[in-house]
């Protein structure tokens, strides 16, 4: 009986994590891809120099951040993976989503800008209630939004 309780205690979160986590991830990826297409006209570079030339009207510091957590199935899968080593796919997709989402939010915070330069990505693992437990990851994207002087006839 006790064994059954223990088994349920460990498997339910993992199963729930698998079902809902998969759905949530697929949904998130669809939204990321759609929004990336919508913002393709706003280039974000890690250069310190400007891409365009011409007088700059305004520049400002812009940020975008997101906190994403990993589901229990992936946590369990990564624990198994750490036995044999190799690339941990579940964390790769987590960080990929977080970084792309942060970049999108950065762009969404300045829809009228012409370009964003010197973009930097900062990652922080959020500690859980137990030591060394990672509950989620925060990604912060920041850069300088450049607004050029609108010229008559320019695209």
């Amino acid at each position, binding site marked *: 009986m006790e064994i059954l309780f223990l088994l349920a205690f460990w498997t339910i979160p993992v199963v729930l*994590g698998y079902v809902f986590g998969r759905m949530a991830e697929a949904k998130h990826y669809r939204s990321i891809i759609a929004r990336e297409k919508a913002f393709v006209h706003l280039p974000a570079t890690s250069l310190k120099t400007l891409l365009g030339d011409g007088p700059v009207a305004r520049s*400002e510091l812009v940020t975008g951040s997101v906190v*994403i957590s990993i589901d229990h199935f992936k946590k369990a899968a990564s624990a198994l993976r750490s036995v044999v080593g190799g690339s941990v796919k579940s964390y790769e997709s987590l960080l990929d989503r977080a970084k792309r989402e942060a970049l999108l939010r950065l762009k969404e915070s300045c829809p009228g800008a012409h370009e964003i330069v010197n973009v930097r990505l900062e990652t922080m*693992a*959020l500690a859980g209630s137990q030591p060394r437990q990672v509950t989620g990851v925060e990604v912060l994207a920041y850069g*300088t939004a450049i607004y050029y002087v609108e010229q008559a006839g320019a695209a």
Partner: protein
Amino acid sequence: MLLTNIETIPGKSITVCHGVVSGSSVRSKHVGRDIMAGLKNMVGGELRGYTELLEESRAQATERMKAQAQQMGANAIVNVRFSTSSVAAGAAEIYVYGTAVTVG
């Protein structure tokens, strides 16, 4: 107060450099948010409560940095950098620093 994370303010020139200014803020998540995050954690996905929390604390750190620059008589901060660390379980430090300058 103009802020950029590149070395200059495009279209303007730096006349006086005042030195490094910084601002920090340490925040901890509150219990309500923690419970919600715990539930959300099971299925994964965005922890909105934490995103907002870190955003608020970043805004506060930036305000503190701006106040310090204002005291020095600067009107812009260039080369701004954000830095974060989880100091203890449930608390995070946000640190913002940059160079206070006067542009003309």
